[in-house]
């Protein structure tokens, strides 16, 4: 492939071919989506079980400790697995798209927003879950729209619906709602993304 005297038509053909061969790798995004989908679903259902069992035993003093341990341990496991997945992806990656950079920025801002929301809710003594699900909805819907993958955008809308729905629920059942929100908003679209053709 080495030709220096091109016609304008040939030049356009080269440009068009290079652009049309470019493919967004859905499967890499799906791995991270599924990882956090499972981690957070397990954490939500585990939290429900902790609250249900300890409340029935009237072991109130231990609820806080077990709750923090549940979330911290699972999220830590999530970050460790994510580190190895990203390292493997990075080693195999031959093309890094602009879209990946946008998505990375979007989710870094979303994680920052989760932390800010948690601090605000603790300070105001209000339930953080509706706001957390709202932020998840923003991140997931935007990711779906950027990837032009409709199931993920619909999953994001599911987060918005669950965000409103959780305001009608209280106590340990909030965790069941959050778990269901992650299944509909993240796990199902994540598996669809994984099986999608590039």
């Amino acid at each position, binding site marked *: 492939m080495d030709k220096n005297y091109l016609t304008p038509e040939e030049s356009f053909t080269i440009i068009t071919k*290079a652009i049309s061969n470019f493919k967004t790798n859905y499967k890499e995004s799906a791995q991270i989506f599924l990882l956090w989908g499972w981690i957070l679903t397990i954490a939500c259902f585990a939290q429900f079980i902790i609250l249900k069992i300890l409340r029935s035993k009237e072991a109130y003093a231990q609820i806080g400790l077990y709750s923090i341990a549940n979330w911290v341990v699972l999220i830590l496991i999530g970050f460790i697995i994510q580190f190895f997945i990203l390292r493997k992806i990075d080693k195999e990656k031959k093309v890094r798209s602009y879209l990946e950079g946008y998505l990375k920025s979007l989710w870094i801002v979303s994680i920052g927003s989760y932390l800010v929301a948690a601090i605000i809710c603790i300070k105001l003594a209000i339930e953080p879950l509706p706001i957390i699900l709202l932020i998840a909805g923003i991140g997931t819907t935007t990711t779906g729209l950027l990837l032009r993958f409709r199931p993920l955008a619909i999953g994001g809308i599911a987060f918005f619906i669950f965000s409103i729905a959780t305001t009608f629920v209280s106590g340990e059942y909030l965790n069941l709602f959050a778990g269901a929100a992650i299944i509909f908003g993240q796990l199902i679209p994540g598996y669809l993304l994984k099986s999608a053709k590039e």
Partner: protein
Amino acid sequence: MYKDLDPLLHSQLRLAIVSMLVISEKVEFAHIKEQTNAAAGNISIQVKNLQEAGYIKVEKTFKNNYPKTMLSITDKGVKAFEDYVNDLKKYISPK
């Protein structure tokens, strides 16, 4: 013939390389080789020409103890590509 066209981009291999870089943040040398079916030596020469013109950046790292070369386009390269495409349009649909 086609005097207005940037001679650096008006070459089959260099144009293919720059077109790939315009739509991606970073592209590995091996990917360019796969997509263009050109010889590694030839690609290296064209990459060097584009780098010397300030159109692309070359970043060398290691992958499993093997050298990994990542290429990316510069602002100057994007501008040159845009100008090249606009100049091409004049030849295809002259006013």
